[in-house]
């Protein structure tokens, strides 16, 4: 067995409470590494693609990676992988910090959960020994309160991931939260909720050994030193929220359900403005030297601010009042809701009201009170919230009219804060994404913000660039390393190979990792094909096709051009 691995995963059936240690072949680990890659492979082996959504037999995998527990900066991450209740396709969402380290110390490379517990339960894994305890007393509790209560009861040595009320209520875009961070996209919280598991508590003492510890320490020092440089300054000093004014200037800030790409209230939501009028602190995940989390306010009132939350709950809903947007973001965190899908679905509903397709006249663009009310209704699935908890695609199918054409989603996953007509390499990345419209699995926006393409008139040449970003993301998500590090590498694949060599002892090189990345992307595709994928899914909603952006008429994407890009993508992938 390679260093850096335990060579086994735990399969826990929460119906019976039984757990089984399943060996993992060295070859499989080398082919899929860990994180997203390993998780998808385990799902394929477990027949997850064909499983009914949210059924007891549908597995949910927490996958760790060989780098977890090493001194490499940003390596304390884990992937949560399952069939998405929102898309019916593969879903891998990542989160960070001590849960990953504790999971690895439990003596396994992944945890697969199947079944459905008889009552709302906490799954406790203490040094690899699994048991279930009732969590009925935490029913309805927020993610933060659940985590605090469980740590107080079980002991500070435990690391806990939990769902909020949204996960309990099967909101299709519910998150799994750990230490204030979320495995956010695609509804993994609903999957855990469907198993009647409120929380997972981990503690372990099985430390790893590295193949070349001295070289690994040197490598870690070098990487940490570079992580303090200019390539990560944006994340340290302003956070991802720095995108807001930049995107607005480029006419690429989605506004009022993607009706336009410029928001008149952008300045009031910018980090520059937020920090001028509020106290701010920074936090880091375990082992991270970047510290990208910018928290406005203090104590229990503190709110983590990310670009995606500001865009989705701000400009996308037409809300410019910063206090309201911060409150909305905090409420999503408490309920365990993905802020992108929450904002996207509410903005969609607001436009449906505007067009007379929905009767909820109170749900208007720009109305902060309506935004907050809608979030609470979604979390509890009450009133209109029951429909919106299904996500914009299912809601559109129920609303009818022409609403599917304005539902801001691909494969059912709501589109993040990148206007596709203004950023057309990203448009391709969204269209072909295995888990739907996604900025974490495709970094194609980087291509749009470069000299490589004309972002508003991309050609076939953009396809290979989009593929490169998708492959790189697949590898980073499987190693796992934070993508905020991506700017510090001169040759990412070569450096990643060196990291893996030092950790595992494999004689891996850059060329092997290129192949590995493509294999992982293909495995996600294989999952989707087994789950019923058809080529027609690789597209964008009608709204984005043949209609220029009102704020920038040059930003227009024809149906034919997108189809040509997608066809070329499939050709280059050899699918």
């Amino acid at each position, binding site marked *: 067995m390679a260093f850096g691995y335990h060579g086994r995963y735990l399969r826990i059936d929460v119906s019976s409470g039984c757990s089984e240690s399943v060996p993992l072949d060295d070859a499989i680990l080398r082919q899929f590494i860990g994180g997203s890659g390993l998780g998808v492979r385990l799902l394929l082996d477990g027949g997850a693609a064909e499983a009914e959504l949210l059924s007891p037999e549908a597995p949910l995998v927490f996958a760790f990676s060989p780098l977890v527990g090493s001194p490499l900066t940003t390596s304390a991450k884990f992937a949560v992988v399952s069939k998405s209740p929102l898309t019916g396709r593969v879903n891998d969402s990542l989160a960070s910090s001590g849960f990953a380290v504790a999971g690895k110390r439990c003596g396994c490379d992944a945890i697969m959960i199947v079944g459905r517990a008889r009552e709302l339960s906490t799954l406790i894994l203490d040094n690899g020994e699994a048991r279930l305890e009732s969590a009925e007393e935490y029913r309805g509790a927020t993610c933060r309160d659940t985590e605090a209560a469980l740590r107080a009861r079980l002991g500070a040595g435990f690391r806990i991931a939990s769902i909020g009320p949204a996960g309990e209520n099967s909101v299709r875009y519910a998150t799994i939260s750990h230490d204030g961070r979320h495995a956010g996209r695609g509804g993994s919280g609903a999957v855990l909720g469907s198993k009647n598991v409120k929380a997972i508590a981990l503690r372990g003492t099985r430390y790893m050994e590295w193949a070349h510890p001295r070289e690994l320490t040197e490598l870690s020092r070098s990487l940490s030193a570079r992580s303090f*440089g*200019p*390539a990560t*300054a*944006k*994340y340290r*000093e*302003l956070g*991802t929220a*720095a*995108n807001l*004014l*930049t*995107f607005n*200037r*480029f*006419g690429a800030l989605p506004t009022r359900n993607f009706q336009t790409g410029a928001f008149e209230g952008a300045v009031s939501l910018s980090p*520059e403005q937020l920090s001028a009028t509020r106290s701010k602190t920074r936090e880091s995940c375990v082992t991270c030297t970047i510290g990208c989390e910018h928290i406005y306010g203090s104590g229990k009132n503190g709110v983590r601010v990310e*670009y995606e939350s500001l865009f989705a709950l701000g400009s996308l809903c037409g809300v410019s009042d910063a206090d309201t947007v911060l409150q909305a973001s905090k409420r999503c965190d408490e309920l365990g809701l993905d802020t992108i899908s929450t904002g996207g679905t509410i903005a969609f509903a607001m436009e449906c009201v505007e067009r007379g397709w929905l009767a909820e006249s109170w749900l208007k663009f720009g109305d902060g009170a309506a935004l907050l009310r809608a979030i609470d209704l979604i979390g509890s699935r009450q009133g209109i919230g029951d429909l919106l908890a299904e996500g914009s695609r299912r809601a559109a199918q129920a609303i009818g009219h022409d609403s599917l054409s304005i539902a801001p989603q691909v494969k059912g996953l709501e589109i993040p804060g*990148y206007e596709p007509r203004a950023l057309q390499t990203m448009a391709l990345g969204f269209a072909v994404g295995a888990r739907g419209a996604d*900025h974490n699995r495709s*970094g194609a*926006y*980087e291509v*749009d*913000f*470069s*000299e490589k393409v*004309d972002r508003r008139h991309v050609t076939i040449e953009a396809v290979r660039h989009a593929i490169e970003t998708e492959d790189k993301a697949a590898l980073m998500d499987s190693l796992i390393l934070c*993508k*905020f590090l*991506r*700017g510090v590498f001169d040759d990412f694949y070569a450096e990643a190979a060196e990291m893996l060599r030092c950790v595992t002892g494999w004689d891996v090189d850059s060329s092997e990792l290129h192949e590995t990345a493509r294999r992982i992307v293909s495995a996600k595709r294989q999952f989707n094909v087994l789950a019923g994928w058809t080529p027609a899914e690789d597209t964008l909603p009608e709204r984005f096709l043949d209609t220029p952006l009102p704020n920038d008429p040059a930003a227009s994407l024809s149906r034919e051009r997108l189809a040509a890009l997608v066809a070329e993508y499939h050709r280059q992938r050899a699918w």
Partner: protein
Amino acid sequence: MQVEFFGIPRERAGVDSLEIPAATLGQLLATLKFQIPSFRDFISEGGLHAAFAANLNGDRFVSDPATPLRDTDRLLILSADAGG
């Protein structure tokens, strides 16, 4: 011509925008380096540090120091790492 700053470049510049006369991108960056000392570490003879990017009028990204500029142009300087 007008230079607009976004994100970290704005933090370093301390202003949203500046009027700087220049015939080429190279001239503009040289002037910028002189006017804003905190930019010195981010501008070399070859152009902007890889962590920053320059865009002309919101249309195209530019890096060649010989890129001609007109009085009516607006140069946008932003973090190269635009997403997140």
